[in-house]
């Protein structure tokens, strides 16, 4: 072996090494090149501000997507402080069953039946604005909600009860922002209109402002809360503000929501103007909601 041979071998290694190095470098370059030519960031809709269409008492800004039907089973037991005789409330229960269907990605319709006052309700929910990221982004999602509820209870009072007198309307603007993947907050200016009230002291129109939040604990569990503040008036001085605290548990196609609240009713006409329980004195109704999604018309 001569020096000449060694130098040749060295040159060979060098060439091979340089080849490898440039290959490795070229790979990074290729990805870098992809990034450079990537489209400028575009507006993206912020999804899943809340897990379900309901938070606790409140509706959330979420709608079932187009062609999706949600079947909800909502349950509220009696108050926890009703004692052992009532099995701490479990002896009593009110139920609401409802179907919600997404006609489009923005518009949903729903019907429900509550055992409380044998009430039928129907609603429309429209996603007017969706929170987005990217250029020209929208900071909040706004969903407009309108519902009417019809009490089908047989009344014993001698007053002539027309059909119209059995109807109550609820109007809400649900304004929500997902601040992070974990934290979402919603504000809900609310108007409840009751066609019939028993005494002049009761208000036909009740105004309230609701607030709700969702804080995720893990990917599939979250803490929730919602609250309704009644604006001063006869209703506010007789009834209480509705407060609920809960947990969302998500499994595949179901969402389980467990909660305690001082309100027995599960539709706006009950929980906004007719809440009587004192949350901090133990007038807590334990409740749950199971939501099951069905795809009626696949995309």
């Amino acid at each position, binding site marked *: 072996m001569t020096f000449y041979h060694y130098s040749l071998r060295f040159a060979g290694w060098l*060439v091979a090494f340089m080849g490898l190095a440039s290959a490795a470098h070229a790979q990074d370059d290729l*990805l870098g*090149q992809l990034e450079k030519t990537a489209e400028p960031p575009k507006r*993206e809709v912020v999804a*899943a501000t809340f897990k379900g269409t309901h938070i606790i008492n409140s509706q959330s800004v979420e709608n079932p*997507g*187009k062609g*999706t039907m949600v079947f909800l089973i909502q349950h509220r037991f009696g108050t926890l402080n009703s004692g052992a005789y009532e099995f701490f409330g479990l002896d009593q229960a009110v139920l609401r069953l409802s179907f919600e269907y997404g006609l489009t990605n923005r518009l949903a319709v729903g019907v429900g039946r509550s055992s409380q006052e044998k009430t039928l309700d129907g609603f429309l929910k429209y996603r007017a604005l969706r929170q987005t990221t990217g250029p020209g982004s929208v900071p909040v999602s706004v969903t407009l909600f309108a519902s009417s509820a019809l009490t089908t209870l047989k009344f014993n009072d001698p007053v002539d009860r027309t059909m119209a007198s059995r109807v109550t309307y609820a109007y809400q603007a649900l304004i929500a922002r997902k601040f992070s993947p974990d934290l979402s907050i919603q504000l809900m200016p609310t108007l409840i209109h009751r066609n019939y009230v028993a005494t002049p002291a009761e208000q036909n129109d009740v105004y309230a402002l609701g607030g709700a939040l969702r804080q995720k604990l893990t990917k*599939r569990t979250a803490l929730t809360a919602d609250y309704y503040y009644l604006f001063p008036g006869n209703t506010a001085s007789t009834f209480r503000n509705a407060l609920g605290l809960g947990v969302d548990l998500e499994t*595949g196609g179901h969402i389980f929501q467990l909660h305690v609240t001082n309100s027995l009713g599960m539709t706006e006409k009950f929980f906004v103007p007719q809440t009587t329980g004192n949350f901090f004195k133990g007038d807590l109704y334990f409740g749950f909601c199971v939501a099951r999604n069905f795809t009626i018309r696949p995309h």
Partner: protein
Amino acid sequence: MKQFLRLLLVVLVLAAPRPGRAQGKFMTKAGRVSFFSTSILEDIEARNTAAAAVLDLGSGQLAFAVPVKEFAFKRTLMQEHFNENYMESDKYPRATFTGRFSGADAAVLGVPGSHQVQVEGELTLHGVTRHIATAGMLELKSGQLLVFAFFSVAPADYAIEIPLLVRENIAKTVSIRVSLTCDAVGAPPAGSGSSPVTRSNASN
């Protein structure tokens, strides 16, 4: 001296410009990537038509970047779960692959028809990078490079947790299909050029 001549020859061959466009770079921003999960209880399928890819026929290297949020599902809730729970696409917005292919050099690709290649590289999904190897097909047609590959990945390998309740609904391995039509980079658009490939096709 013989060795020196041989080395010189190698260097010269490497340095010499190779003919045709077969050595150039090809690129797309609208590649199609779809995946299938088949189980007794449920079939799940999603499509993405916004995959970006670049292939360098000269060096045999390729790179992919797939925006995870662009996968479209038949069921809205599935799509939400895919992004929120499984892929966590806010945290990991892109899936990438970088690697190389072998088995089809410029001369082979010059022949019309599709040619099988071996692909090997690093796949990054859900923040986890793993080495994978698969077969693919390449075809030069009308100045465009057609790319096709079919392979499978196991969600568990990429730290994608599947809750117990839906474990029977989601396959242990998910099949992924890649189908791209890449245009040559820095070359005139297909049809207007005078490359040998275009011409030989036109004469058919």
